[in-house]
């Protein structure tokens, strides 16, 4: 329900796992928003390892604390639905961002961009890196990461476009978000596919490990790594030349926007509903579709020219 005006509005941000630079940046954005909104308190939390069970435990305790809103990046779109429903039944506004919850478990989902844009952007970067044609491979995080799988699905579809006819996806492997396994998988790719031109890794651990593998194998210039990563973590690899460009949306803006959106829902803004829109401070208005999905800008591409500028920010 609506809290009294003088009481602080508590918005809990539940992320996939703590110690993840991406979410730390999103937290920064949320704090900016909270600062602008005055009486908002942000509770930043998440499990240690990215697991749905861990997030359920946390949401359970958040329900007990009677927070006003929960914004979540889900480790499992379905597993969290029951608990999210319970939270909503107790009057807590549940929103998801980044990696979404199934529609019945949340009021809105803020896509950092949208899956189509992200998938297309990665293929576009890969095509540039490969010079238009050649073999490419994907090194994903784990087989159960929802968003990764959606992006990979999109990438495969995009590759069917005639303009990418020269690109051939030869393998999809999983590094389980462990640097050693990802590294080994990357080396395996480099060995098994001598003509490989690009490794796309839509995972921060993976893109790091793949870049290191390319450097160690002495294949800088022959094989390019691209994908999604944080400037702060990728700066070194951009300098080494293993990565020419990579993309990421702005997690600060993401955290900022979802906080505003949660505020709107808590305040009971009439426009805040599927098909409506939420207003998000400096980000302007975000329109919601019939499913309650909103999307931000296409992912931003970083390369030598701008990575240093952002590496100190997130």
């Amino acid at each position, binding site marked *: 329900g609506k809290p009294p005006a003088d009481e602080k509005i508590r918005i809990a941000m539940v992320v996939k796992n703590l110690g993840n630079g991406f979410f730390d940046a999103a937290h920064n954005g949320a704090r900016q928003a909270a600062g602008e909104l005055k009486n908002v308190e942000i509770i930043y939390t998440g499990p240690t390892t990215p697991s749905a069970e861990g997030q359920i435990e946390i949401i359970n305790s958040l329900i007990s*604390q009677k927070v006003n809103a929960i914004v979540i990046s889900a480790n499992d779109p379905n*597993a969290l639905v029951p*608990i999210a429903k319970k939270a909503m039944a107790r009057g807590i506004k549940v929103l998801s961002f980044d990696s979404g919850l199934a529609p019945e478990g949340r009021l809105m989902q803020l896509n950092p961009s949208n899956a189509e844009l992200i998938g297309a952007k990665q293929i576009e970067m890969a095509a540039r890196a490969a010079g238009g044609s050649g073999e490419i491979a994907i090194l994903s995080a784990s087989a159960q990461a929802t968003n990764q799988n959606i992006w*990979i699905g999109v990438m495969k579809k995009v590759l069917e476009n005639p303009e990418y006819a020269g690109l051939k996806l030869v393998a999809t492997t999983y590094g389980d978000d462990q640097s050693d396994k990802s590294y080994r998988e990357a080396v395996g790719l480099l060995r098994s596919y001598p003509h490989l031109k690009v490794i796309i890794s839509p995972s921060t651990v993976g893109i790091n490990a793949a870049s290191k593998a390319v450097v160690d194998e002495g294949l800088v210039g022959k094989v390019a790594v691209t994908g999604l990563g944080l400037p702060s973590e990728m700066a070194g690899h951009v300098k080494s030349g293993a990565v020419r460009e990579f993309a990421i949306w702005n997690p600060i803006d993401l955290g900022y926007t979802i906080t505003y959106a949660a505020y709107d829902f808590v305040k009971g803004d009439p426009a805040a509903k599927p098909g409506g829109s939420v207003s998000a401070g400096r980000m302007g208005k975000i329109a919601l579709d019939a499913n309650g999905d909103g999307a931000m800008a296409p992912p931003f591409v970083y390369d030598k020219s701008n990575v240093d500028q952002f590496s100190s920010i997130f």
Partner: protein
Amino acid sequence: MLLLLLLAIAFTVNGALLPTFLDPYNLADGTFNFSEKALIALPMALLIIIREIDISVAGILALASVAMGMAHSAGAPPASLLPIALATGMACGCLNGLLVTRFALPSIVVTIGTVSLFRGLASVVLGDKAYTGYPQIMADWGQGYFFDFIPREFVLLLVLAAGFALVLHATAWGRRIYAIGNNPVAARFSGIPVERYRLALFVLTGLMAGLAAWLLTGRIGSTRPNIAMGWELEVITMVILGGVSIAGGAGTMGGVLLAVLTLGTVTYGLSLANIPGIYMTIVVGVLLLVTIALPRLLRGKKEVAK
């Protein structure tokens, strides 16, 4: 004893510091976080009492969940999913037990191997997909309440814990379990079918992991290969904290249940205070070390040095 004290302390401190802690609804909801693990801890305690251990329980759970998912998507009726989970669990436990008893292998080695086998098989079946949309009956048990207040899982846990306590402390089976843990050779010389007990307890552990799979899957409504990742260590921690000797032959169900509640209280208190989970692992680790080291230290080092 120490544990009871700890539980009392944890309860009071939490109650005093966290305004929302003592709300009965919250306390009831807090039990969801440990009920399934505790269900596995019950047979695990018996296994550890007879000097065995099962590292593969979380793997069994994952495989049982996958089996349910497969059956469900193949159109099996909702009521059949529980037997399927239990059967899968028992089959996995049986494999562990047979490897341990037939080939005279140390159980820790066997189950380190089988855990990657079970999880691996789960991931073979699942690939990059997930099973969802489980029937309502599973959700009812996994996340439902009796009288809209007491979680069914917790009731199930209490009932089964009472059952396990009865078996361990008041029946011939329990007496023999202690005898095996105390001295397996003498137990065999006394006519106890030691290997059969070992096998049976592995199967029982598998069975309970299957039950936990049914509840957990019902609670979260989906199956992924990383379901219940890392639970084996938490379950073993509960058992050891409950005073079950890793050297076998000693331990009580009451102790295990007390440890479960203590851990539940501490972790729930920490999460209500929004302390990140990783601090929780530190607390749990320290708790474990303190509960075993403190009696040693109190008894004085002189005797230890002998």
